[in-house]
């Protein structure tokens, strides 16, 4: 199973390094949006403050707790897998996916409220209370960042679902469960990115 690697450890090392590099490129992908956000915030500081206070801190913070808890479950799943409790690991991954789903549902509720008050991205924005360019830019960025993040959440849920299913079916052992570790690593990145989006979009006013 090591393929052309000299040992299992080497293969695991290569896979981890590859995943970390992929995560680095993901950070830079979001980094471009963070740069745009910084640029716009310098330009429309006051509008951003007003617009971000329109976002519900309750939903944003709840979602933060949801994601951090899901990451805890994912970490416990890795711990379980390493000590050979594959069924427990699979169950914990199932819980993680459910938390991910809860996150998306809350996000959907928030999107729905925005749509009702006329907050759409770009030129479709027609929220009467905040008719400024800055507020428009803020909400456009809000949609771009949360939608991209939401895609990553969805991708992570799919990955965790697949490895969780395989763990439940006995496809892994305490020694060999590399895909599980890597998927969880990815999930943590999704979580960490949200920890930056949360203050930028909800708290900084």
């Amino acid at each position, binding site marked *: 199973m090591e*393929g*052309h690697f000299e040992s299992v450890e*080497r293969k695991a090392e290569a896979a981890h390094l590859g995943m970390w*590099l992929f995560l680095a490129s993901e950070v*830079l*992908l979001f980094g*471009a949006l963070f*740069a*745009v956000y910084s640029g716009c915030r310098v330009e429309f500081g006051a509008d951003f403050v007003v617009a971000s206070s329109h976002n519900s801190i309750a939903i944003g913070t709840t979602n933060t707790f949801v994601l951090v808890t899901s990451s805890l479950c994912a970490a416990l799943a890795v711990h379980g897998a390493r000590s050979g409790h594959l069924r427990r690991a699979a169950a914990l991954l199932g819980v993680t996916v459910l938390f991910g789903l809860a996150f998306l549902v809350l996000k959907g509720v928030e999107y729905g409220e925005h749509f009702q008050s006329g907050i759409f991205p770009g030129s479709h924005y027609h929220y009467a209370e905040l008719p400024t360019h800055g507020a428009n*830019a803020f909400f456009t960025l809000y949609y771009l960042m949360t939608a991209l993040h939401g895609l990553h959440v969805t991708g992570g849920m799919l990955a965790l679902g697949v490895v969780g299913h395989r763990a439940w079916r006995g496809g892994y052992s305490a020694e060999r469960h590399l895909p599980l570790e890597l998927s969880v690593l990815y999930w943590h990145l999704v979580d960490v990115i949200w920890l930056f989006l949360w203050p930028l979009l909800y708290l900084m006013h």
Partner: protein
Amino acid sequence: MTAPSLTLPRTVEEPPLLAPAAPADYLHGGGVRSWLLTRDHKRIAVMFLGATSLSLLLGGILALLLRVELLTPGPTIMSAGAYNRSFTMHGIVMVFMFMIPAIPTVFGNFLLPLMLGARDVAFPRLNLASFYVYLLGSAITLTSLVAGGADMGWTFYVPYSTTSPSAVANVAFGVFVLGLSSVMTGINFIVTVHTMRTAGLSWHRLPLFVWSLYGTSIIQVLATPVLGMSLLLVAADRLFGIGIFDPALGGDPLLFQHLFWFYSHPAVYIMILPAMGVISEVVCVYSRNPPASYRAIAYSSLGIALVGFLTWGHHLFVAGMSLFDGAVFGVLSMFVAVFSAIKVFTWTATLRRGSVSFETPMLYFFWFMFLFAFGGMTGVAVATSSLDIHWHDTYFVVAHFHFIMVGGTLTAYLAALHYWFPKFFGRRYNERWATIASVTVFVGFVLTFVPQFLLGNAGMPRRYYAYPPEFQWLNVLSTGGASILAAGMLLTLVELGYALAAGPRTERNPWGSRSYEWLSASPPPTENFENELVIARGPYDYHLPE
């Protein structure tokens, strides 16, 4: 798409030269399907060679059309609109489909595992995927041709790119997908260098080409996502009017320029660093000398990779930047010249007391040195903001970046193609014809772009369709040069095509190189090395017997 045609005639009954009863080489065995689904890094490299060569051909034909159009001050063979679409496509194809991928995906893929004594790259399936993602990205990019072309220039500058009625979004998506392929290759190479080195191969025994690929890969992984996101935002601006960059919607076009150049300036080093790696190998082999300073070349590659991230602002001197910022970016840009000069001097010093021979790859080394030094010095000139204000957006800049980026990459690519041709295909090219082609390419290149330096300095702006009559003689010279360059490239194609079909069989290590890739048979067997390699010497130990 091109792979099968490259397994051309090889007579089985030919008497074995030096490797009696050698195992079947990687080129043989299996049909088309085994090529298309291969995970062998060597076959993937050969498929990339076919695909990137087609890109080079397409970009070259577009360049010739542009030069023909510029023969006369007014309209010659095409409308102004067609001209805009042609130079856009020329830039896009050459930058994203040839110069960025060419050396890493062809020579990097083929040689990296061989140079590490490895069986393959770390992730062979990812490697094959990167090839198909490259094809997909190229296909999406080229759909813009069917959709009437795109005319925003390869730089996608906003607000024109968000308002142009042409097929900008196709190109933006295509380049995004090409970027994915680039990231996949980068991740694969970094992990390969870290984890696939054979016994005894310490970091300071790595061939210098490996160091340059390593530096390139870091830039690919870290810079490409930023470009990808920026281009997606441009596409979203067009499709949904999100107004991030478009000033009509309250966006900021300068922001786009910052993001674009944050990738696209390091992208210049994605193109030139692998070229520098090739040049480092070639100069050592043909002067039979170790590099004057191994560490100077290796570490300056990393220096360029890192400082390259901090110079993007020099593209914005006239776009609205404070004097202070301009000065900082100017000085940082000059640091790159310091690292490059370290390399140039080290290469030159490598020749000293060497036993220099003048085979075709070595000729390309000299062409590279001339173009790179000339292009580099004009680079320092345009990094000086006061001078740049005069030259900005003129043909001076066009000539500068063609000298350094195209001249550097193309000469190194051709050097690599000739130097490693026996390794790839087990055959020799004809030295006389290759020399003629090489001299033709160089003469054509210089004659194409020296007049453009003069044109730019005299004030001719880039991307203009028409020009005043007093510029005509220089434009005619430049077009003449481009024709000679095209003839040289065509001759190279014929000469190498002939060598592929009917060149004499080669021995394992025709150049007497000490680098590890020549320790396997030429062409290598599928598993690269018959026994596991143990490295007990450096890749440039010419004082030791082979």
